[in-house]
């Protein structure tokens, strides 16, 4: 079952998870992002508008995606994070690795 919506805007691809990014959904979301990178997508925007919570497996997914895109010469960006998610990203210092903006 698709856990994300994918759309293309110019040179970047937007990934919009439609469920929370947690242990039960991370494997499918990870596969979808891996497939995009394998297809040659370099810049990925993850839109968190529909996401209320993410756990440490979700945080790990962002780090993995960032590392893969960096190796491919691209970059990761996160948009529409709620205040709770933004606070979590900052506490985990992920904002030092890629651009994260709130809703």
């Amino acid at each position, binding site marked *: 079952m698709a856990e994300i919506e994918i759309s293309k805007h110019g040179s970047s691809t937007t990934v919009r998870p439609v469920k929370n990014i*947690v*242990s*039960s959904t991370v494997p499918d979301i990870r596969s979808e992002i891996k497939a995009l990178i394998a297809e040659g997508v370099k810049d990925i925007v993850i839109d968190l508008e529909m996401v*209320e*919570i993410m*756990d*440490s*497996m979700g*945080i*790990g*997914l962002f*780090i*993995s995606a960032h*590392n893969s895109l960096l190796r491919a010469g691209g970059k990761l960006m996160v948009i529409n994070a709620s205040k*709770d998610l933004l606070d*979590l990203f900052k*506490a*985990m*210092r*992920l904002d*030092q*690795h890629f651009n994260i903006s709130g809703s």
Partner: protein
Amino acid sequence: MTGRRGTIIRRTYPSRMESVDDFCAEITQVMREHGLTDDIFAIELLAREAMTNAILHGNDCQEDKRVCLMFRIIKDMVVIRITDEGKGFTWLSMPCCAPDSAKASGRGLKIYSMYASRIAFSRRGNSVILTRRISGRKTDG
């Protein structure tokens, strides 16, 4: 169940990730009913981390092994106790430093320390009790 000792939920689940979603759906509903909306994110995150750890590391994702959960709202506190059937871990020697921000794993304990007021383990290490104090809470227990 709600009584003199507050609201208590006790559940036992098989070791699969969907169990985490089921338990969290129930406790977030109860928190909404108690007007604890400001703390839902923190409590749900604590429950998710502890339950995922119990399933992944405690029970090695073996579905026949169970995870026992207790969720309690009492006075100005929420208490979550999660117990697995694993052999436990040497929690006394666990690292207290911040995780490497470039690594994809190792953030569970950091999340406990950020969102829980108190963290306790059983001696064996197969049971964790997470307590969060709720601000502005009416006393009903």
